[in-house]
């Protein structure tokens, strides 16, 4: 039962997407073209996230950890 209502919900969301982007009005070959273009764009976005963003986030975290790591020494010197 839960699976069916979840499937219905996903189908309803897809219908809303179709209505907003007007793919509800398109002929089947136009729909294929439009969806493949969209899927291609989303796929490329995910690939870029996976390759570049993860590496950048890792570098940013390492920098932050480095700043935090050296902080107790400098704080102690300021207090004294």
């Amino acid at each position, binding site marked *: 039962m839960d699976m069916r209502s979840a499937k219905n919900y996903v189908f*309803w969301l897809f219908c809303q997407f179709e209505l*907003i*982007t*007007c*793919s*509800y*009005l398109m002929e089947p070959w136009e729909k294929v073209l439009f969806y493949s273009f969209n899927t291609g764009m989303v796929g490329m976005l995910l690939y870029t996230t996976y390759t570049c963003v993860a590496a950048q986030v890792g570098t940013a975290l390492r920098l932050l950890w480095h700043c935090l790591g050296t902080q107790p020494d400098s704080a102690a010197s300021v207090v004294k």
Partner: protein
Amino acid sequence: INHIVHNGGLYKRPFNEAFEETPMLVAVLTYVGYGVLTLFGYLRDFMRQWKIEKCQNATEREEQKDFVPLYQDFENFYNRNLYMRIRDSWNRPICSVPGAKVDMMERVSHDYNWTFTYTGRVIKDIINMGSYNYLGFAQNAGACQEAAAKVLSQYGAGVCSTRQEMGNLDKHEELEKLVARFLGVESAMAYGMGFATNSMNIPALVGKGCLILSDELNHASLVLGARLSGATIRIFKHNNMQSLEKLLKDAIVHGQPRTRRPWKKILILVEGIYSMEGSIVRLPEVIALKKKYKSYLYLDEAHSIGALGPSGRGVVEYFGLNPEDVDVMMGTFTKSFGAAGGYTGGKKELIDYLRTYSHSAVYATSMSPPVVEQIITSVKCIMGEDGTTVGRARVQQLAENTRYFRRRLKEMGFIIYGNEDSPVVPLMLYMPAKIGAFGREMLKRNIGVVVVGFPATPIIESRARFCLSAAHTKEMLDTALKEINEVGDLLQLKYSRRRLVPLLDRPFDETTYEETED
């Protein structure tokens, strides 16, 4: 902006009009939708030009390809690529009288709306929310139909002449006296076509050297009449009295553009109910301004005659004003009287002048006798002169239906434009795919609606327009509301961000008004 106005005692009752603003997200998504369709439109045009796809729309002949292009403007692009996709919601053929329920012929299209074929089946008993049948006089049985049938057997159907030559029947004289009495004016004249009444009479009234002040959202017939007359036309913002007053002041102070002479005549063109917005004109203020600046008023009561006012005499009676204040009262018999044609009413000298100088009187064929008899019977019914209270009951039923329907739709959360008392109810759809989807889904559920899109409305403000009728019973309205609720949830049409406090279902009372919370 929702406001209740009591302008210096000009209004005897609260004037509730609301045009809720388009939510920002909805506007952005509507533009996204139109953007996608425009891109696909360019793709399809490219394919048609390079013969990859068969071209089914009108194009120039091969020899004319080097001439100035005929079909390259935005209107034709829109027609080929956007209108064609949702064309099945319009021009639907009906095959019964357009009363509260109507029969429609089923049609399908196998090539995406370029051609239609009829399956032969007739869809019966569709609840009709699109016909201008405000008082329910579109009937094929009853007193009006019997009288019209008798006159048909006596006079025949054609008149074969114009009013000025041999087409002036005694029925026309009777009709005009009756209409003058109904409106409370000295004299009236009736014409065969409502559109022609406006477009042919305004040129007879004003000419070069006169000024026409016309509302932004006036009907095409008024615009055509104003342009044909040759007068200078200035537009004021819709129902905005400050804009109108500014234009009047400028006209009086500065006069005509180059010579600075005073204008020969200033004519203000307004409508009683605007059919695309459902708004009612602010008549008391317009009349006060007209008297102050000494100009003339032309009131087009196409949708409001029979539909407003406690005894159905239109917007003048709705506001409790004197019909002699309006210089030219014009209306049509198409909407509330179940017939066809238009009339103008006013002072006797004015109507006698129009009888001689109007193009419609000189060149247009006069009204057909059965149609005249239908109008005479329905006007007598509304006035109560046929001995029954049917007319009065219909007017009250229409007012009750209007209040109930509008309140229920607002409670559900749709954006509804217009005045609380107008029987024209526009429900905002905005997105182009939803225009087609709404029309089709409502037809699947046996309700016929009229959806309106770009050339008639601004491009993002497309809407579904319901026209209520005194012939709709409460059960029909409840069925329709249930289906609209379902379709609204299915298509996510409940954009309104203001929630009304739900009122108890009180009987119709002329002094009630809604309370809103922001």
